[in-house]
């Protein structure tokens, strides 16, 4: 019954408000009081800034000088801004290559941690700990690890006969370096995958085994589909976070200009920060923010649509 009523409400316009009884009326008042912190916060820290930044995106605004309405010019300028495209390319590189690689790696790690080995819980702690190292500390640590001459990574690579690249001073290797840094701190994703693996029904795996499926086949045909909702969740949160990638890139340039080397680490949010807070082009930065928002929205919806075919929901 209740479902029916909800449906009816959903599809009529203007929405027919239900008759409020005494209980609803008093609950509504009390409810609004309980919600007060969020309501104020939403108005002051979300809705008002959203509307304002949308307005700013059509203006030239230097914070202290009065703003000047210029219509769509910021958006048109963006289209012709080489650095904008460079920053978008850098960000898409991380989204398209970094996020899936990290997901794959964390799935493999979760499978490893789910194996029955001695000292399993110690391994789980070791895999997880780097993810709680503060971002700035881990970024500086990796700057040091990736140091071409004195860093430990190229030394270790040297032992197996590989000549390591110049990582952070080579535009081709700076982004892979950042992806490595991200993988070091993927413990949270591993934990989510691990809890998903533990939810895979043993009966399914046993049935597959009775049918003669080997370990790989059970992994590929049972476990991977069973955790696909988790993969989708990790993918979407990973993509949204990667579009806003900032702190690591800010630290990783060392003492050089933002985007070093050769703008290869000039990510979207870094360029936005540069425009808004270093060059005080706040109107332009606001336009960039809205473009980012639209891109994130489109990507999320696309992922949800496409995933319908690949995601398995039990029950």
């Amino acid at each position, binding site marked *: 019954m209740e479902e029916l009523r909800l449906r009816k409400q959903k599809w009529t316009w203007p929405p027919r408000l239900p008759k409020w009884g005494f209980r609803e009326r008093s609950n*509504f008042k009390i*409810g609004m009081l*309980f919600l007060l912190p969020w309501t104020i916060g939403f108005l002051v820290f979300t809705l008002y800034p959203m509307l304002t930044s949308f307005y700013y995106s059509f203006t030239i605004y230097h914070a202290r000088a009065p703003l000047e309405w210029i219509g769509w010019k910021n958006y048109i300028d963006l289209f012709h801004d080489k650095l904008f495209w460079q920053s978008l390319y850098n960000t898409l590189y991380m989204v398209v290559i970094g996020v899936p690689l990290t997901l794959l790696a964390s799935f493999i790690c979760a499978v490893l941690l789910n194996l*029955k080995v001695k000292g399993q819980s110690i391994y789980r702690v070791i895999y997880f700990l780097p993810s709680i190292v*503060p971002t700035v500390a881990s970024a500086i640590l990796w700057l040091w690890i990736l140091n071409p001459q004195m860093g430990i990574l190229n030394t270790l690579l040297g032992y197996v006969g590989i000549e390591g690249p110049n990582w952070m001073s080579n535009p081709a290797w700076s982004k892979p370096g950042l992806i490595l840094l991200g993988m070091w701190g993927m413990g949270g994703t591993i934990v989510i995958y691990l809890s998903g693996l*533990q939810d895979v029904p043993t009966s399914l795996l046993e049935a597959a085994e009775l049918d003669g499926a*080997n370990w790989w086949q059970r992994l590929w045909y049972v476990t991977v589909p069973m955790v696909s909702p988790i993969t989708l969740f990790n993918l979407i949160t990973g993509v949204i976070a990667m579009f806003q990638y900032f702190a690591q890139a800010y630290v990783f340039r060392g003492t050089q200009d933002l985007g070093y080397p050769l703008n290869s680490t000039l990510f979207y949010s870094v360029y936005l920060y540069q425009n808004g807070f270093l060059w005080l082009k706040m109107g332009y930065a606001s336009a960039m923010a809205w473009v980012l928002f639209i891109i994130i929205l489109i990507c999320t919806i696309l992922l949800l649509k496409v995933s319908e075919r690949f995601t398995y929901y039990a029950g």
Partner: protein
Amino acid sequence: MLGDTMNTNLPTPSRDSGSQQRSSKSRAFFQSLLSHAAINFVGLFFLLPFLWMVLTSFKSSQDIFHTPPRWLPYDNVRVDVNGEQLPVYKVKTDDGVKQLAAVKIVEGVGTFVDPARPTEMFEYEIQQGTDVIAEPVMHISFKWQNFPDAMDRGSRPGIGASFWVYFKNSLIIAFFAIVGTLVSNTPVAYAFARLKFPGRDLLFIIILATMMLPFQVTMIPIYLFFNDTLGWGDSFLPLIIPTFFANAYDVFLLRQFFRTIPEEMCDAARVDGASEWQIFTKIVIPLSTPVLATVTVFTFLWAWNDFTGPLLFLTSPRNFTMALGLQDFQSQRTMVWNQLMAASVVFTIPIIIAFFFAQKTFIQGIKLTGSKE
């Protein structure tokens, strides 16, 4: 520890006949060997950087530039000459290799004395072509002094900024952020979990939708609002005040937990004439300590870790947080890797301690916000 409930994906050997049992036994042994090898090899990727950070923090300034790098920290062997601690060098003299103490080294020419007869001075070039004449004598030694050095100097000595100050600032901000988050999110979550009123579900959808909104969209107006309108630039207020107005993640997390508290308890209290506020403070909150602990730990993590917020609002070094101070230190003195790592270790230690005290809380929080949609 991290996983109490677990099942294994490894095949269990079938036990039919003797010969099959033996072969499957050896197969199981082989598989166990393989899984150990894999888990250890991948584990190195997580462990070694950690080790490298800690070991670097104990290295002497000379040792960090040693190529190829060594894992363990080395320092000069020193000898007391007339009350001064001088580094010992192996010097190729005309009559064989001698251990001499270096008084000073200027432009590749070192002045040495023999510790046994400190009156005579010798001058040698450190290097002749590719031939190294004088080589420092090193031994394994942990330089604890890096920690006080890093903490005292900070990035900008002489203006009252040091990592002690940054540490204190970070603690203050984290403390108020925790208070704000707990005070503001719990009533909101309670309303969504337990009060039935028209429009509630729509509001909840709006809350969830705000999770999608990138910070970049609201960043500039929020900055101008705090900085110009309220004049709170270069203070902790812009970092603390917003936490007193609830946020989507914590509301969601708390609501999920509140919904598991039996409704009958609340109803019984209602029948006895308790107000919603009384039910909230006297029944729901006392029953929610696990989730409140989770929120506390994650708010601490977030506040301790936050870089963008302090970067936007804090301008004078004496107000910097650990995150901002460490980044500043790095940009001022790129090459002092030992002190940078020492400061990083100090930055990380509170979180590691929190983790070992509240391991279950950490993992539970990730699972609650993560896997349960």
